[in-house]
């Protein structure tokens, strides 16, 4: 089930009142929300419901064992077993075929022919998101930053449908306390919820889909058939498309959670207004960035073990972050580029000192944005060969016509980028005004937004980019 569909609308309009009715009885609510979430997840393929249940039980079991263990060695051993299970799950479903395939081709290049061990494995939707949440939970329990929750509360946390398939990656310390006691039914932040749902819908259904179909997909499919201006605009269009697609989805997720009384962390904060790559990663997919920081970069030593080791830690974190997005070398290169960029930035910062941060903000924003766009080429390309065609095409066909660069395409790109520079008080002001409108006007605003998104969007619903991650 995906959010902008009639099926989900009916599902949510049933779940929302029942959730609030069950809320005073916390145990009943937890059972209800787990069941609702499993229906939501199983709508895609009911077989994988057992995978989700298995991941929940496994994580809960080992978290309890870790918390009850008295000896440090025992705690470490339990954590290791828990992580092996969780990473094994992710590794098998997401990376097994990729590594077999890559090993085969490397061996073949070396003159050794390996048998075909690929398994044709179906990738369960959202597995990267819920396994990362499960990993952070056991690690937090191991670090004694979190007391393990009961099975029902933990189950409700991990399976909670608004974040289940495409994030945000909500930590146990953020959501579990909210699920401890009933949410207050008098303090629902509905104007913010409807604002996020409406804008998220518009970003995804209108902006992302328009740019995808009108320029991004045709150009990235056959870069050789397009002129340099088309390729350049397609790269910028993809930057806006992926932002509108993913941020649109998480906006909807945050809004839906708010309507059920829960607050999710922010996942995007105008990333294309970033003045440096470090700043970009504090604004883009923020819940993944901090996950990588807290559960990978810092445990590796962070910046505490010398310059060389810091660079290595940065590179490894970004390479694995790239691989998290998909089992392909294009993602690894994308992560590697960001790793190199971050390490270079760090080097410059250390040489010039913090005062350099204040200067030439617009120039640094421009450079950061263009670097991010360049890296997106690898992220979006189906193969390294196509990425290379895109890059060479950027420089070699400037005199040719660019029929795909239409006024509408340029306007949507400008809207996508320009809106990132809007002061936060503007959306806050809109939400505040919305919250003061009467019920009728708020309903009318919601209905009109639904109509606008539906009428301006394509017929049917295109899948979200981040589902495959």
């Amino acid at each position: 089930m995906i959010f902008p569909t009639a099926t989900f609308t009916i599902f949510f309009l049933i779940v929302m009142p029942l959730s609030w009715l069950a809320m005073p009885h916390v145990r009943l609510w937890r059972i209800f929300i787990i069941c609702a979430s499993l229906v939501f997840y199983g709508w895609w393929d009911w077989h994988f419901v057992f995978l989700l249940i298995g991941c929940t039980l496994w994580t809960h079991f080992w978290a309890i064992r870790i918390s009850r263990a008295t000896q440090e060695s025992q705690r470490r051993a339990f954590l290791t077993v828990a992580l092996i299970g969780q990473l094994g799950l992710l590794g098998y479903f997401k990376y097994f075929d990729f590594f077999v395939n890559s090993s085969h081709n490397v061996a073949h290049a070396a003159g050794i022919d390996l048998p075909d061990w690929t398994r044709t494995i179906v990738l369960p939707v959202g597995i990267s998101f819920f396994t990362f949440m499960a990993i952070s939970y056991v690690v937090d329990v191991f670090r004694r930053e979190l007391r393990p929750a009961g099975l029902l509360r933990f189950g409700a946390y991990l399976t909670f449908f608004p974040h289940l398939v495409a994030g945000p990656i909500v930590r146990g310390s953020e959501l579990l306390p909210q699920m401890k006691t009933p949410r207050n039914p008098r303090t629902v932040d509905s104007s913010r919820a409807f604002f996020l749902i409406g804008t998220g819908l518009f970003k995804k259904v209108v902006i992302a889909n328009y740019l995808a179909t009108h320029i991004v997909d045709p150009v990235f499919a056959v870069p050789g058939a397009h002129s340099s201006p088309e390729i350049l605009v397609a790269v910028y269009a993809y930057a806006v498309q992926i932002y509108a697609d993913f941020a649109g989805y998480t906006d909807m997720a945050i809004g839906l959670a708010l309507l059920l009384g829960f607050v999710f962390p922010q996942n995007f904060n105008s990333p294309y207004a970033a003045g440096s790559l470090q700043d970009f990663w504090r604004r883009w997919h923020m819940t993944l960035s901090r996950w990588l920081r807290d559960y990978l970069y810092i445990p590796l030593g962070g910046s505490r073990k010398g310059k060389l080791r810091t660079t290595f830690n940065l590179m490894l974190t970004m390479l694995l972050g790239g691989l998290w997005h998909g089992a392909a070398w294009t993602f690894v290169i994308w992560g590697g580029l960001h790793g190199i960029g971050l390490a270079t930035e760090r080097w410059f910062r250390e040489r010039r000192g913090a005062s350099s941060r204040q200067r030439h903000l617009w120039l640094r924003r421009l450079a950061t944005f263009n670097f991010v766009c360049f890296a997106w080429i690898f992220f979006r390309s189906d193969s390294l060969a196509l990425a290379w065609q895109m890059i060479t095409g950027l420089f070699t066909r400037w005199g040719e016509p660019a029929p795909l660069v239409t006024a509408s395409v340029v306007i949507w790109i400008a809207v996508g980028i320009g809106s990132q520079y809007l002061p936060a008080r503007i959306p806050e002001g809109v939400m505040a005004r919305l919250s003061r409108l009467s019920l009728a006007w708020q309903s009318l605003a919601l209905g009109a937004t639904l109509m606008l998104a539906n009428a301006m969007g394509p017929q049917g619903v295109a899948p979200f980019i981040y589902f495959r991650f």
Partner: protein
Amino acid sequence: MITGPRQPASPPPPTAADRSRLRQFGSAGGGPPTGTGDRRLTSARRAFAIAGIGVVIGLLLDAPGLHKSAFNQPAGWQRTVALDVTGGLEHVSHAVYLDRPRAALKSALGRSHDDRIDTNIDIPVAAAPSSSAAVVGSAAGQSVTPPRVAFSPAHPLRVWIAGDSLVVSPGYALLNDIEHSRSIKSVGGVDGQIATGLERPDVFNWFTTIRAELKKLKPSVVVLSFGGNDDKGYMTGLPKDVSVTEFGDEAWAREYARRVGGVLDLISRAGAYTVWIGLPFTRDPAQSARFERINAVAAQEIAKRPRTAAFVPTDLLLAGSNGGFSQYLMLKSGEMVDARAPDGVHLSSAGGQIVAQKIVEQLYKTFDLTSWRHRSGQVAASG
């Protein structure tokens, strides 16, 4: 609005007094509390009322589009219910003028036709190809191999690629392959329409589209892929005396053959040649079996028209060592490639390249695309 505003703090847990109110599903008492950024917080009941009424308003404003979506659904009770509900909504919406804003918006976007339900199948009546249709050769008898029509940079072979979503990957790979060819030219790019086919002109009317595009693009070759969404026993646009209830039975095969044949004749009468991409095996064996049935009908119709169409089978081309579906394929070079999309139905770009290669081979087999080199060489030599 694209920016993401800051998160408010988590609302406080309810007091004992609140708990009793909770049982009444969030009826708020006293003045409205405010949240972060001067927003007024509201009760769950009011939030649900806004959501519910907002959705109803949205339904009324969107009624024509929703009715078309309901019409386009696969046959079954859900479609029947959806049609009844959206049909009623459409009447109400029209009566109270709530369908006008959507119509005005669609008109402004130049997409007025979006909400129209079109089931008209406008194809040539005669299934047999006309004699004037042949573009490939002029031989009267089929036993004689017709001479291959020659194309050159001055008079290139114009290729249009169209079909359902299965055409996208091989279509783009084909564009890549012919990009540097001087005697082959792409016209119209790749027109791949998701979730469409020949069974449901109401979802997307390919018969109308093909007719219009042939007129506009004037292709010499049309590369088509259909059938990926046609493995259902439900068709719209049926002639009055025809009834189809089950996929794959005789009535279905007869009607589907009529449509495939109609498309082929439509193209050949416009003076173009058809290359029909067959359906591949899929991860689901039952779906593979249905695809084989569709392939059989398409191949049979194409076999009736050997001078104007060719069938490019992809099932065995993309089969693994087990003779069936395989995500990964071993190429002749020994390299292993991920040939299929994660859904187990569509092709990856590597899979698309394999199919595109076969299409290119078919084009070179059917047409003379190289003799211009000798001729230009002679001209240059004599000059």
